[in-house]
């Protein structure tokens, strides 16, 4: 079992080192931080609200993730298949689960780092006022969880193709669907066709509705469980797609 973890750790280290070996990671971090910082100020009137909290900041995360997380996830498997290195991985005495988990965790840690680097905005609100820091910590955790949901979906779709662009577009589409599915604009036209039970079920899947509470610092077990389950399901699908594709 210790071997299992040390192999997983080696896979994660290799992935993470790969991010920082090229300028891609730094470009990503720069874009992420610039957008994460600019959106609340320009689009949500961060100062004009005159409330010392980070809700405008967290409120934009779903939209930020919609494009940036698929950009991180798109290469995870597509690139392995395109370059043929997937065969190298499969010839190593490791399990398919370790490979799926290793890639996911490395990318999730990377997204966590991007999120952590937004700390100046936290400092800013603390300088300007006295926000509820417990709420902010909870919102950070919730945001990271949601990023994990986006990421697991992006990674899984990346395993279906050898083309990163295709992986990116598929991931954005699926994530957009999951974001919007709970909105009345999406659900109302369906009301005539589907029963109330189905409509309610679909609304439960919505990232936006789940995240709305989280961004206000309300970290409920049901919402946490939703994102954890989503990640687990997506990774299981990732594993099955990978095994089907290499037919091992």
């Amino acid at each position, binding site marked *: 079992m210790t*071997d299992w973890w*040390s*192999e997983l750790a*080696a*896979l994660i*280290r*290799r992935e993470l*080192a*790969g991010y920082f*070996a*090229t300028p891609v990671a730094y470009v990503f971090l720069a874009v992420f931080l610039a957008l994460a910082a600019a959106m609340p100020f320009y689009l949500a009137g961060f100062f004009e609200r005159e409330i010392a909290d980070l809700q405008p900041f967290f409120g934009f995360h779903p939209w930020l993730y919609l494009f940036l997380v698929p950009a991180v996830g798109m290469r995870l498997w597509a690139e392995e298949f395109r*370059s*043929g*290195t997937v*065969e*190298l991985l*499969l*010839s*190593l*005495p*490791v*399990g398919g689960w370790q490979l799926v988990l290793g890639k996911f965790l490395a990318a999730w840690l990377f997204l966590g780092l991007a999120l952590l680097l937004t700390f100046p905005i936290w400092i800013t609100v603390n300088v300007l006022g006295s926000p509820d820091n417990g709420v902010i910590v909870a919102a950070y955790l919730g945001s990271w969880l949601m990023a994990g949901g986006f990421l697991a979906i992006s990674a899984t779709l990346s395993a279906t193709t050898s083309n990163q662009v295709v992986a990116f577009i598929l991931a954005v589409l699926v994530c957009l669907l999951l974001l919007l599915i709970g909105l009345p604009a999406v659900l109302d036209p369906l009301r005539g066709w589907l029963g109330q039970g189905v409509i309610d079920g679909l609304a439960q899947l919505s990232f936006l509705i789940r995240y709305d509470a989280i961004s206000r610092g309300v970290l409920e077990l049901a919402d946490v469980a939703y994102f954890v389950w989503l990640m687990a399901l997506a990774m299981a699908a990732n594993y099955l797609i990978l095994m089907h594709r*290499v*037919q*091992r």
Partner: protein
Amino acid sequence: MIEVDNLTRHYGPLRAVDGLDFLVEPGTVLGFLGPNGAGKSTTMKMLTGCLRPDSGRIRIMGHDIVSARRRAQQCVGYLPEGSPLYPEMTVADFLLFIAHMRGLSGERRDQRLRYVVEALSLRGVLAQRMVTLSKGFSRRVGLAQAIVHDPPVLILDEPTDGLDPNQKRQVRQLIRSMASDRIVIISTHVLEEVEAVCNRVLVIDRGRCVLDDTPLGMLARSRYCGAVSLTVDQPERVASALGSLDAVAEVELRSGRLTALPSGRGELLGAVSGLIREHGWPVHQLVLESGRLDEVFAKLTQAGGEAHD
């Protein structure tokens, strides 16, 4: 020891590998030959545990590749076709990663890493990103990762493809030096490679084994085995005289060069040189042929080849 028993693999309706059986003992360098699409790479992927057989069994050093995949894979080093590498990693990081995944640690790991860096002359490129490596170095890094855990079985898919003649010679030397107590299986399109490094040849065609022999045994199947080729001044006249010899089955004349094929009745070289001496023909070149692998290969893999594809 590798035991392959009735191995079969389909891709949709296509039978890529169709009931393959063979045993390989340590000390063997097995050349895996066959036309494109014959099932060479598919078989190699199954031997390395990358691809699951539809039916049949593979045991590597006693471990079943399906039910004991990890243990079997621990015994195998694999160079995939084209030697794929992670472009953004450095050579040193990559070899360290593979060593780790192969379960090496501590002093043993350092010692093995030193060994492969030395054996493949990689010291000068250790800090280099792999995207910047030449083809020759890429292949050497691919070989280094395959042998880092000192496996008893090496499976190399076209190890010299795309290399220049000097690099080919280097890689072949390396393969020979590693072969003594191991099993090495190489697939190749280059027939001369078989003569240069292999002590056993397996030719497969449409997923089936059509020849299992030594390189010499394969050569002996050539109609040119034991043939005499010569360059003379008046080839047409010499050709008709040669054709009347009992030991000659047939005479071929190609771009001024005569080849007398043996009939099996009597000793050909003696008969030909006797005839030359008798007539006093000036001979510029005289060669006793050992056989032609390309001809045997074509004979084995083109029978009914039209039905292929």
